[in-house]
């Protein structure tokens, strides 16, 4: 019994399914880790790194959509903004890659604070529209600004030496750097969701007027989640700039904001790992269909429609809610 209560407290899926939950989670986690460690020796590393960047992006976005209930349509600003800052500081200032990424994160967090401060006052579609409008303003800023090099973007960004020691031009070294960043990002998200703060976020999502009547200034909590989501998105964007060695307008465009929504919905909102699978699916499709004469957007569009119609909860959400998922002790929260 005491074991059960313990699980209830340490897990997001706190329906009290007992030991099955922790065991299944641990096994899946280990399998996933093993695959990630072995993958670069079998699969093209750049593709894997792209996948990890977008997976982290989608998970950071899900922190807002799934765990706070806010649909942002402007996350490209944080992703692309951080990419520009990282690319610029690494290339022009000659800082080491980890400092460049960190500066990208800080810039994204600051941008998130400003955008969030304006947008959080409205809810639902109005919130989404304000974030979209602000992100578009940022897009045109990037188009006009000097340091972003306009239509060309910042090209041939050197990857440099991690901590001044490890040469990131080696694809395997670069891959493990990206993997480490990804795992750190996921750990931060996990902790954020399963923390006292995360409980308050959950209560706001469950019943906002009640949270207000208990004395919570809900806008501040939402803003906190918004800034955290923006910062982690910046982490993904900054690393992406190093992986591809460029930062362009594509990363700040509204299509990018739409793509991350697609990834999150495909994988399953409000599940920790769902967006990883959603990102994996979209990035894989884009990669393998890139050379086909058939336009890739039509295929992803069809996949999206089928998924929304058949897997309403997303791939992972549907798995959690399935008989097998429940047997393994997963619980889909809604």
């Amino acid at each position, binding site marked *: 019994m005491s074991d059960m209560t313990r699980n209830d407290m*340490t897990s997001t899926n706190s329906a009290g399914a007992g030991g099955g939950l922790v065991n299944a989670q641990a096994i899946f986690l280990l399998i996933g880790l093993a695959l990630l460690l072995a993958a670069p020796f079998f699969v093209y590393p750049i593709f894997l790194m792209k996948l990890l960047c977008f997976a982290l992006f989608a998970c950071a976005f899900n922190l807002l959509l799934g765990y706070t209930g806010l649909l942002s349509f402007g996350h490209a600003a944080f992703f692309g903004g951080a990419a520009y800052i990282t690319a610029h500081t690494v290339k022009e200032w000659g800082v080491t890659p980890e400092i460049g990424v960190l500066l990208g994160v800080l810039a994204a967090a600051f941008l998130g604070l400003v955008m969030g401060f304006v947008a959080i006052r409205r809810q639902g579609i109005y919130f989404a529209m304000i974030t979209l409008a602000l992100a578009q303003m940022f897009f045109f800023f990037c188009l006009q600004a000097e340091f972003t090099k306009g239509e060309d973007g910042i090209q041939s960004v050197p990857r440099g030496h991690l901590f001044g020691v490890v040469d990131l031009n080696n694809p395997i070294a670069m891959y493990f750097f990206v993997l480490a960043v990804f795992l750190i990002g996921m750990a931060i998200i996990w902790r954020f969701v399963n*923390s*006292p*703060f995360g*409980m308050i976020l959950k209560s706001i999502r*469950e019943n906002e007027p009640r949270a207000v009547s208990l*004395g919570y200034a809900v806008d501040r909590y939402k803003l906190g989640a918004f800034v955290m989501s923006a910062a982690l998105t910046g982490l993904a964007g900054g690393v992406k700039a190093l992986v591809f060695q460029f930062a362009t307008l594509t990363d700040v465009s509204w299509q990018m904001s739409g793509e991350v929504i697609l990834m999150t919905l495909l994988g399953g909102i409000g599940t920790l790992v769902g967006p990883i699978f959603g990102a994996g699916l979209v990035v894989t499709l884009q990669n393998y269909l890139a050379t086909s004469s058939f336009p890739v957007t039509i295929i992803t569009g069809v996949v999206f429609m089928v998924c929304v119609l058949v897997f309403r909860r997303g791939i992972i959400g549907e798995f959690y809610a399935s008989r097998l998922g429940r047997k393994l002790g997963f619980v889909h*929260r809604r």
Partner: protein
Amino acid sequence: MAGQHAQTDSRVVLSARGLTRDFGGFTAVNKVDLDVRHAEVHALIGPNGAGKTTVFNLLTKFLQPTRGTIHLLGQDITKTAPDKVARMGLVRSFQISAVFPHMSVLDNVRIALQRPNNLAVQFWRPLSALDRLNERADALIAAVGLEKERDAFAVDLSYGRKRVLEIATTLALDPKVMLLDEPMAGMGQEDVAAIAKIIRNVAKDRAVLMVEHNLSVVAEISDHITVLQRGEILATGNYETVSSNPEVRSAYMGTEHA
């Protein structure tokens, strides 16, 4: 009326003067004066559409009054934000049950305890940091008789039990004034008796203002009754005063309750 004004009675914790709210051309609440006293159960009754819930929303600042003033513990809260009002000690419940459905009973109560115990903003600490709230949470759960349901999801509780849980979370804030919007609506006799007892109990050291339709319970547990009709006060006083008022009898109570 003028003799028993707010300032002369030190037991008054929440008072409204000339409280008015217009919605477009419609005046939902019109010049309502209200004094809620410490250690009293004050019932707000009246037919449907009389403006009871609007008064609640005005007092708790979920709505802004068009005119009038509200004082809580001597401080003017007419322009204060609702979450600030809650932190000052005025905590409300809602007409539809206000629980966090996909959380356990324990977590529901702990949410209320987190802020007063400075455990609401730590995004870097594990959930086990909240375990130190368990003792207090369990005491509150026991106070309303929900021990057996402690680890159940709020969504799975019966309606009556949800209302009880709501009272427990409200009590967690140790409010000076508790506003209960129809705490017994849609409940069976057994639950009504249980809630009535809990309300009497919690009113020993705080003020309770409640909207309620169940007149036999109102008669039984209220120290003071205010009758609203079409947004205006029809009568106010103890049960005898109010129930013998001919206007009240014809407008609302009927004869069987007099």
